[in-house]
């Protein structure tokens, strides 16, 4: 039976779907539009939607006043750095768990998952004190270390579910042909694993980019990433909506685009493979 999707129901759902989509997306759209207004237009009532004098002044101001690119660079270094170190640790581990599983493999995986359940605030005090004593407060190295450990369980889990899907017979065939472990990894496993590794990387950069507990508590000025930079706009004196919008737009645009590309992996990554 051809599903009775009449043109009429399709039109009805088009209207419903687009209305909901627009409403949910609206705060982001509004931020984007406001970033091109003057501060005066930004707070005007009635609000100006499209027909105002578009200006790039805010973007220039945000950079010259508060050195936006320093914080942007911090965000990039912290999110990419922690993800790469995490991958370096997780790829061998996930490989071993997927291809030479033992009785304990499942227990190790579950235990890794359980470390993710620990609320950050439970270890805030000791970590803050360790950071203070080791001079790691407000350093990028310190944040990279913390975010690596926070996301390591997710990285291992995602890679594990991807590696699991690579048929073991291919590896055995390679082994029979006399491929060494190194060759096996470089020529056989890597090409098949690259898509999985790439999406793991993407999702973890997103998670690290938006992480807002440790980045807010362990940084001040030098190592502050964009989360902390935007938080500095919360001060009640002098709210600059247009500048806030410009800074926000620049802070979310790159990650939003990456997020759109990784939407399929998002489900797998965040549910630890429970929903695919």
């Amino acid at each position, binding site marked *: 039976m051809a599903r009775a999707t009449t043109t009429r129901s399709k039109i009805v759902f088009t209207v419903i779907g687009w209305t909901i989509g627009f409403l949910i997306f609206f705060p982001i759209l509004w931020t984007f539009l406001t970033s091109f207004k003057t501060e005066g237009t930004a707070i005007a*009532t009635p609000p100006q939607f499209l027909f105002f004098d578009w200006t790039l002044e805010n973007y220039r101001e945000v950079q010259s006043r508060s050195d936006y690119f320093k914080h942007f660079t911090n965000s990039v270094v912290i999110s990419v750095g922690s993800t790469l170190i995490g991958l370096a640790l997780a790829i061998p581990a996930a490989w071993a768990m997927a291809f030479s599983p033992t009785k304990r493999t499942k227990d190790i995986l579950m235990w890794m998952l359980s470390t993710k359940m620990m609320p950050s605030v439970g270890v805030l005090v*000791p970590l803050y004190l360790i950071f203070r004593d080791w001079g790691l407060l407000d350093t990028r190295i310190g944040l990279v270390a913390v975010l690596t450990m926070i996301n390591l369980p997710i990285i291992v889990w995602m890679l594990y579910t991807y590696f699991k899907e690579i048929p073991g017979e291919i590896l055995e065939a390679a082994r029979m042909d006399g491929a060494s472990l190194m060759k096996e990894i470089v020529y056989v496993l890597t090409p098949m694993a690259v898509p999985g590794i790439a999406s793991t990387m993407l999702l973890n950069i997103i998670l690290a980019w938006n992480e807002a507990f440790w980045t807010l508590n362990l940084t001040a000025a030098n190592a502050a990433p964009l989360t902390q930079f935007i938080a500095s706009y919360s001060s009640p004196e002098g709210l600059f909506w247009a500048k806030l919008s410009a800074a926000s737009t620049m802070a979310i645009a790159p990650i939003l685009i990456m997020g759109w590309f990784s*939407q399929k992996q998002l489900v797998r990554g965040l549910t630890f493979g429970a929903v695919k």
Partner: protein
Amino acid sequence: MATLQTRATARIMMSPAVILLFLWMIVPLVMTLYFSFLRYNLLMPGTEENIGFLNYQYFLTDPAFFTALANTLILVGGTLLITVIGGILLALVLDQPFFGQGIVRLLVIAPFFVMPTVSALVWKNMLMHPVNGLFAWIARSFGLQPVDWFAQVPLFSIILIVAWQWLPFATLILLTALQSLDGEQKEAAEMDGAGAISRFIYLVLPHLSRAITVVILIQTIFLLSVFAEILVTTNGGPGIQTTNITYLIYMQALLQFDVGGASAGGIVAVVLANIVAFFLIRLIGKNLER
């Protein structure tokens, strides 16, 4: 099948990740536990001494703790209610064929990628501001009195912001689950004369139950530690009306420098999270066996 040699190699490959993660978990946790039995304030160095369970007693009998616990539960519960019901409805809509479905899907999941500090400040200022905000303008154009969101309903305002951030997550997971529903089953039910509502109750909802459980458990883990949204909007106020457990401990640690008290609170938070984690781990572990 695995030879001794490959087994040894496997162990070596796993050990860096396992050892580091183990240290990451155990060292700070043991330190928190140790501090929680001390009188230890950073403003009074040198006065540290063992005071047994006194920190716990202070923390658990502090009226602020009960307010914070209630706020935490309302925040988690309210957000779950909105995101799960909204997520199911949205997933049902997105599952229908319509024009520009792919684009609408992108629009709907977008809030998930917005960093918490941005979404909180944008909502607080540009949408919820009692004078210049968009909501106030909408209310006035209908001749209504604008709501002063963060003064009148502070906790609800935060719930709205957090729900906006997590709605995409729920939608995406429920949609993924919905799409794995067997089309033939639906058609069979349709031919047997089941209406849309009974199809939903007897076919779709049972199929979604696992995904709904996953959404609830995972979101709970994250929602128990909502922090940035509170920090940049209300600072826990007015009074302690929007202080959750995470924020309470943060205040005790980094604003009052009460290491001992904050550590006791931290252990309490760990215990609370573990209750949820216990169920989540079992659920996912069961899935791993299949």
